[in-house]
């Protein structure tokens, strides 16, 4: 009797752990579709240059402020494309942003609510100064010996990231409510995969050009191509 009970308990435990460990594959894994977004901007790029008076070994003698980066075929870089209302599991990879050459690399990083590693590859003092409303804003020093600082952003929001030591440094952490997002590359494009089929509103956000939306229908196994033009 006792043996039986022990076996039963063990089995139950294993079953329990198994159930706990089992995570249903994301809806899109088998039946999802892909969104290919191409974001364009008809206006002129806004790239300013500033003379650097310190840390020239790391920062160079000229700082480049990439406010609006427009590539070939009017492709707009650094725009965050997201699928409003879609539901999906958290992304496995931890978000990361680096401070390299006195610039945030990448300039725009998108992540789900949670932690982000903020790296300091420059090996000089930076300070992580964020401007946000939903999340508590932070202002923490990151001296040369502090290679990585991990910060948490729990609420969806576009968080502005600055450094007061190098006032030209500007970055953005886009905290998104679901895993279906992407940041446009130099050509203005990004791919969002495994989106559960359905009708959605595609949202595009850019730090200076604001927001645009477009309707999109995602069908299983298919790629929906969406072109969005940003206007000033």
């Amino acid at each position: 009797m006792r043996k039986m009970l022990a076996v039963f308990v063990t089995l139950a435990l294993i079953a329990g752990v198994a159930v706990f460990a089992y995570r249903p594959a994301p809806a899109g894994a088998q039946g999802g579709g892909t969104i290919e977004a191409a974001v364009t901007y008809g206006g002129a790029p806004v790239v300013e240059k500033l003379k650097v008076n310190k840390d020239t070994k790391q920062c160079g003698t000229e700082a480049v402020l990439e406010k609006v980066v427009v590539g070939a075929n009017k492709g707009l870089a650094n725009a965050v494309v997201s699928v409003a209302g879609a539901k999906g599991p958290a992304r496995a990879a931890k978000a990361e942003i680096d401070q390299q050459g006195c610039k945030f690399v990448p300039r725009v990083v998108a992540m789900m609510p949670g932690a982000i590693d903020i790296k300091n590859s420059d090996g000089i003092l930076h300070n992580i100064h964020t401007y946000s409303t939903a999340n508590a804003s932070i202002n923490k020093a990151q001296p040369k010996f502090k290679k990585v600082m991990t910060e948490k952003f729990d609420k969806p929001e576009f968080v502005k990231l600055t450094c007061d030591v190098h006032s030209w440094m500007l970055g953005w952490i886009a905290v998104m409510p679901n895993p279906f997002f992407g940041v446009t590359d130099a050509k203005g494009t990004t791919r969002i995969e495994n989106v559960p089929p359905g009708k959605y509103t595609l949202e595009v956000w850019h730090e200076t050009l604001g927001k645009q939306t477009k309707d999109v229908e995602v069908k299983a196994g298919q790629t929906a191509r969406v072109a969005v033009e940003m206007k000033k």
Partner: protein
Amino acid sequence: MIAVIVAVSVVAAAGTAAAQGGDAGAGKAVYDLKCAGCHGEKGDGKGPAAELLEPRPRDFTTGVYKVRSTATKVPTDQDLFRVITEGMPGTSMPPWAVLPEKDRWNLVAYLKRFAPEKREEAPKRVELPREVASSAESIKRGREMYEAIECNKCHGDQGRADGPSRAELKDDWGHPIRPANLTKPWSFRGGASRTDIARRIAVGVLGTPMPSFIDSVEKPEDVWHLTNYILSLSPGAPRYATLVTVTSVAGAIPDDPDAALWKRIAPSHIPLMGQVIVDPRNFNPSIDLVAVRAVYNDREIAFHLTWDDPTESTGDGTRAFPDAISLQFPPRPSGGAERPYFLMGDASEGVYLLRWESGKGVGEATAHGPTKLAPLAGAEATGRAVFAAGQYRLVMKRPLASKDAARTEFRPGVFTPVAFQAWDGGAGEAGPKMSLTSWYYLRLEEPESSRRFVLPPVVAILTLAAMLLVVRVAQMRS
């Protein structure tokens, strides 16, 4: 790593009984009367006087407070009470200790009403690591950490607020903001006690570029080493003087501001204010203190001036101007209370100026008002200036006597009025836009004579002789 584990262990701050007793309604009455002029009726920092102030008055609707003892954004009631009571040194916020304590607690209660949603999170006091007493070793470690965490980027290599990032600094509202001059702890916004300074380093100054360092030093106790180092940079308290004593010396007076002679003489500290009487006014003067040392010999008088200026500027003529300083004297000191108008004289009565200007050097001038300067021909004054790590050190020399009626003569024992004016050209100061003082006094101490060494022993010997005589006479009679 260790810093992360050990450093911020936070405990909930217990509100004091008095804090809970604050009556916001009663606080409003006091606020409208005493605070609204700068901070605005709505608490948004936009009172009628706000435009003229730098730093700007606090916008209470944001719930962001510079000085707090908490690891969280929200300050404790005690933090607010303390700033109301002690004011913010170096800003336009005066101490309100004149108000009854109850009124101040009522104000705290009222202030919190401006941003109720910002106070949902309970304030949590930051727990500092165990205090490390000051010692040569601790100061050395503090200096190492100062360099390692690059405090110099804003505060400058010697702490004189002259770091390379200085000009770029803005607060969260986009207004320019200056780093603290660490050699002047009396101007620290959040107080100059050891705990105040350690806390500022640990949690930063909210709404400003000053970040929190508690997670960003090598070991938590480094905040105390940094505190000890910072306090080692200052002379303690300034030695404010109303009378500048000119010490008599024998032999030649060196031109070199770094000569050993000057280090032997204790400085008199003279506070300067912005010139706000005539346009263009200077509401936010850059130079607020000059340390004065003065000596004279049988021929010359010399002034040694030390003042902080974050930028060495000879001026581009448009936005930046030459740095300058002047000592002002009445041409003929009467010894009485009659003196020319302190603001560089006026049409009826001029002043004599002993001046230094970057690019030009030492010179003399007369003035009949702040815009009416006339250089004196045949300059008799000489001198030398050095600029290093955000500080000028200057020696200006001149003969004691002068045959020229426009030039002040300096005589021992005479109380000679003196006033000071200074310009930080790099901050756009020129002409009437300056820092200045009202009249002070200068006195050349009586020349050293050998009489004081000879007379007392002679008197002593004579007294002794007289006593012996008296004793002798008494003995002979008995």
